[in-house]
Structure formats: C-alpha cells, structure tokens
C-alpha cells in the first residue's frame, strides 16, 4: 500500500534542499515508504469518533502577556552568522525572485 514513489521522495528532497544521489534515492525511497506506511496504520484504528489531533497533551490557550522583554545585543545576534555586514546577516545573492 505504499503511496510514496521514488519520484515523490526525489521531489521532497529537492524541496527540503537535501542533495540525494541516485543510489541514495534507490536505498532510501523504499525505507521512507515503509515508515510512511507504518505511520499510516494509525488511520486503520482511528474511527470517525476520534478527532484529529496535532498535539499529544490536552492543553490549549497558553499565551503570554504583550510585555516587552530584552532582545539580544546585536553582536550576540550576529555571533553565529557565517558572515555579517553593517549589523546585518550577509547572505549570497538571491536568484530567481524579487524580495
């Protein structure tokens, strides 16, 4: 009942920007399909009376008050940036789209 093809896995890898070789795809697409199929077993036991859930703990409405808390010092914010310039994160030029 595998619903995930090799092409699907290649597409997902491209969307997630994971570089996969043909041999990676050969090996992993079968494994990923097996995992997805295993998870899909849940749908066999969940009846109409079981609502979809996104969270295992029955909690809701955990909010915070709209109060300002200190931000990082700019130097700390940029500390882990591969490159910085003018107090900003420097990134390679962006192709194919306009901001």
């Amino acid at each position, binding site marked *: 009942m595998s619903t995930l093809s090799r092409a699907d896995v290649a597409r997902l890898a491209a969307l997630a920007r994971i570089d996969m070789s043909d041999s990676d795809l050969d090996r992993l697409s079968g494994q990923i399909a097996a995992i997805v199929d295993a998870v899909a077993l849940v749908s066999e036991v969940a009846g109409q009376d079981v609502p979809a859930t996104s969270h295992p703990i029955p909690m*809701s409405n955990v909010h915070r*008050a709209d109060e300002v808390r200190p931000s990082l010092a700019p130097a700390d914010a940029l500390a882990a940036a591969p490159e910085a310039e003018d107090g900003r994160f420097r990134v390679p030029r*962006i192709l194919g789209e306009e*901001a």
Partner: protein
Amino acid sequence: MTAATHLVGYDDAMKAFDPVFGIEVHVELNTKTKMFCGCENTFGNEPNTQVCPVCLGLPGSMPVTNEKAVESAIRLGLALGCSIRESSRFARKNYFYPDLAKDYQISQYDEPTSYEGELEVVLDDGTVVMIGIERAHMEEDAGKNTHVGGTGGIQGASHSLVDYNRGGVPLVEIVTKPIEGMGERTAEVARAYVATIRDIVRALGISDGRMEQGRLRADVNLSLRPKAADGEDQSAVPFGKRSETKNINSLRAVERSIHYEAGRQAALLLAGQPVVQETRHWHEDTSSTTPGRSKEEAEEYRYFPEPDLLPVEPSREWIEELRATLPEHPAKMRARLREEWGFSDLEMRDAVAADALTLIADTVAAGAAPQAARKWWMGELARTANEQDVTLPELPVTPAHIAELQRLVDEGKINDKLARQALEGVLAGEGSPAEVVASRGLEVVSDDSALEAAVDDALASQPEVLDKIREGKVQAAGAIVGAVMKATRGQADAGRVREIILARAGVEG
C-alpha cells in the same frame, strides 16, 4: 518587453471579458511585542536590535503566542463578519528564503481563527457592494532583505543583507472569496475594499494601516473569462487562469495594477495565447508587473501542524466581550457624522482623505462646534502638516487643545488672528492654548477704559468720522476700528470698539 506585453486598454478588456478577482490583505498588528516572543514590535530601529533566539529560529527556542495579538485577530475577524473557530491551530509553512530565519513561517492552514465573513464596501457614488471573506488567519512577518551591488535591485546584486527586526511581527492575513460580476468597476471595487479594511483596522485600533510603510499590503488575484452568450449564466463559465500581483503598497496601486493586469491578460487572450498562472511583482515606477516565481514551485509549502504551539480556543464569553468592543462600520460612521455635523459631501471627503475624521470627532466631543473643528484641522493645521511633511495625527496638538482654543475665541478672549498665534505657540511646545495666551500676552483688550482711550486717540486725528456716522454712514467707523486694532497690535475686541465709537457718535449700535 516582448510582444505579449502589448496592452489592451482597461475599458476594452472589460468589454471583451468578464473579470474575476480576489484580494489577500496582510495587516501588521500594533502590539507592543512580536507574535511569538517578547521582542519589541516597533518600526525603523537599527538592524537586528529587536531579535532573540525565538525570532531568529535558534535551536532549542520555543514560541509562545501573544495574547493581545490573538485578541486583535479575533476582533478583526468579528469586524469582518466572520465566525470565530472554537479551536484553531498554527501550522508551519515551509520554504527557503533568507528573510525567513527558521526556514518556515508560522501561519494557520486548515484551521484559521476566522472564517466565512462578509464585508460591506461603499463606493464613492454610494453604491454598496458586499465582499465575501473566505478567512482571516494569524501569522508572522518575515525580515527585510537589502540587496547590495548592482542598482540596488535583486538583479545584478553581489549579495544581500538581512535585518530580522520585522521577523515575527504579528500579521493577520485576510482572504476574500472570488469576487465576480463587477465588470468595469473591478478596479474601483478592489481599491474601495482595501480602503475599507484600512479604515476598519484603524477604527479597531489594532494597526495604523499605513500602506506606504508596509503595515498593510495587498496581493491582488485577477483572471479574465469569456463573456457568457446572451441568455446564459455568466457564473457557469469557468474561471480563467489567474495572476497574483504581490505586495501592492498603496490604494492607487491596487487600482492601477488591476488596470495593467487586465490589459495584459486581455492582450494575450485576444492573441490566442494562454495566461500563465503565476505570481507577479508590481513596479510603482513603470505602473506595470513582471513575472515572479511560478505557482507550481511556490505552492509546495508542505504545511503541517506546528508542534511547538498549542491550539487557540477562545471561550464564547471572551468572543462576546470582544464583539462588544467593535467600532461602528467606517462607512456608516461617516454617513452618521456627515448628518450630525452638517458637512457637505466635499467637506466630508476632504476630511476623510486628510485622516482628520477622528481628530474632528474628538474635538467636537471636547466641546467645539463641528464647523469650527473642521476649520482648524482642515485649514491652519492641514497647512502646517503639509509644510512639515507629516500627517495630521502626528502634529504635536490634540483635539482637546483645539477645543480649548475655539472656546477662547467663542468667549471673546482672543480673536481669530490671536488664535492663530496661540496655535503657533502650542505647536512650538509652549503649552496649552490658555497657557500660550497668558505667556505671550495674547488676550484681547476688552477693558473699556483702555479701549475708550484708544478710540478717543483715533478720533482726535479723524474727528470727521463722527459726523459721517451721524449722517448714517455707519461703515465709516471702520477706519477708527482699524486704527484702534493697529494701536493695540490686534488685541482689541473689534466688536466692543465699534460699540464705543457708535456711543461717541450718539448712535445706537
């Protein structure tokens, strides 16, 4: 420009085809802090000074929902006539772009807070159009990219710089249903709809709605389909392929982008070419659009429920409490105020355009007559704002000041000329109108003995005036009034001066 960009005029496009459009409006909320962290939500600060591990997406950080943002989103949903979902949740929208620190945006997908609404939009000629609202959901804004090198645009740039101060600022995205049947009024309706959203968020006090600063942005979807044959149902004709014009940041551009896109699509269709379903970018300088990324690539966002956030489940009681705080619909409020104030259509339109309505209303509430309030805000103050290149609400003067100033005029303590000087003092930060009048010594002289002395001095040099008045030429008194005003540097009570002159001539005023 390729052959395909030859345009058909808007009117001709609308004669040849039936337009269908939809609008997504993004509203930045004016909460004190961001959507999921306590970083300050203010505009125009030094780059990366309002960031923390949460909005930078650093490992191990956890978002927590801002309650005020949820409240604002629900109030907006209610104002749009939407139902509020008993349980809504956040979802991750996954894509890669440098302004998105986490490589996903927290948004809402299949369970938006607000859904199925309807908004009344009033056009300039009074025509009322009902716009269906599909949904209004909460999400976070992205950071800001600056392209370096080349001409400042993305083309030819050597690299880009990212400031995440705006990353994580709360947004509400409002999505309309497809709007059909507007024909040649499509562009006008689109503009009026966005203007109405702007007025509503301002009336709710949840955003300043300033499009020029990107606090309110519109994406416009437009498609054209063939006109139905005579006697056939237009709504049975399938929609054409649509384009989505992104990030339109003025009301005028909403209208103009539709003019452009309708003309472009009509030209393609009339030439027998297909319209490509795609995102397009609006260019203010050339009033045109250019293609962005294609839809097929962009729409694979792989949404899934956000595991770091819990569902939002507003109680019915809270929703009803919030419903009770809703302001009147801006169009209805305008109609009511115009009636109450006795303004002409033109006076009302000018006041709305100058963003002066609330200021005038507050001035009237503080005790001034509507026309007097209008005169100050749309006259002297509009001129000052224009000179200083600021908006009326940004001037350092309050409705209470203006009401006080007008009261001083009405009580005869100052005349119009002195009132303008007092206002100058208020704008210069010298205090309230009464304080400025006191400190600058602006009060009109209504002390009779001082005025009588001034009148007698003036009459001594022009004694013939009294004879003229006695002969019935009452207007001759004007020369003496003028002389007295000059002698008192404008501070005399002109009405009282005239009475004294007439008394000297032995004539009843």
